[in-house]
């Protein structure tokens, strides 16, 4: 745990509401994705509320073996799993509807027939000079299946380790690889479409 994180948490323990609001707002989006992917969108906010209650009660005992972010994501995941059991909601990888098996970019021998084009831009910053593309990627990421979205946010946007994500989302390493690949590939296709047509 870093010194600045220790400082923040000690202020949280003494009841600093500004720090609390700051952390709540900062982690909300990721907590929502985790809660949504496990328990569903309808009760995600309730799960988050319960998770913060549990976390604040347990905070004085937090030993800092992991980062606060990782710790609170595990709490929200556990809360979501408890709620899922109560609501008897089942989620499985197989429930994801997509056309991966019959991807039209590949022929029957699984070789390219519709490869991506050459892109203008070699860095993310160059690619995202077009604000429309940025908005388009954000919009399309919101449409991804919940568990793909959560996996991508945790891994590519927040740098969680593969092990941490497997524990939090309760998926096997091979399932996580599938989720990440499909999510990234969707983003690649969105960028490619924009590069070809200039449209979202």
């Amino acid at each position, binding site marked *: 745990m870093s010194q600045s994180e220790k400082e923040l948490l000690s202020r949280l323990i003494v*009841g600093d*509401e500004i720090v*609390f*609001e700051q952390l*709540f*707002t900062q982690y*909300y*989006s990721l907590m*929502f994705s985790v809660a949504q992917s496990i328990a569903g969108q309808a009760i995600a*906010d309730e799960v*988050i*509320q319960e998770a*913060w*209650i549990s976390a*604040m*009660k347990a905070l*004085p005992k937090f030993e800092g073996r992991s980062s606060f972010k990782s710790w609170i994501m595990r709490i929200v995941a556990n809360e979501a799993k408890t709620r899922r059991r109560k609501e008897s909601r089942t989620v499985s990888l197989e429930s994801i509807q997509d056309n991966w098996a019959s*991807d039209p970019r*590949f022929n029957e*021998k*699984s*070789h*390219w027939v519709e*490869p*991506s084009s*050459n*892109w203008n831009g*070699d*860095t*993310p*910053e160059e*690619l*995202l000079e077009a604000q429309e593309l*940025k908005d388009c*990627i*954000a*919009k399309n*990421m*919101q449409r991804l299946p919940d568990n793909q979205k959560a996996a*991508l*946010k945790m*891994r*590519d*946007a*927040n740098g969680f380790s*593969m092990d941490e994500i497997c524990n939090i989302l309760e998926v096997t390493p091979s399932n996580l*690889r599938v989720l*990440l*690949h499909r*999510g*990234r*590939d969707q*983003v*690649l296709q969105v*960028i*490619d479409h924009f590069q070809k047509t200039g449209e979202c």
Partner: protein
Amino acid sequence: MLPTCKQATEQLSENIDHNIRGFKLFKLKLHLMMCRLCRRYDKQINLSAQTINLVEPSIKPSDSLKAKVLHDYRGIHQDSQNKHK
């Protein structure tokens, strides 16, 4: 047997998270040497993963949720102070 292009795309994404090794890596490299489309895909899937970091769509909490959670936080803090008195 060498991976197909579709299998290569999956392995290239896997390679972002942990380095593929051994014979599997050898076969993937051999495929990439022969396939410029998969070499392009390799570059683009890495670029896509980095781009996600910059465009992560951020959802904002509703004011009512914020108020509820803040209320809970005040209550927990109050309880803990009362216990210490």
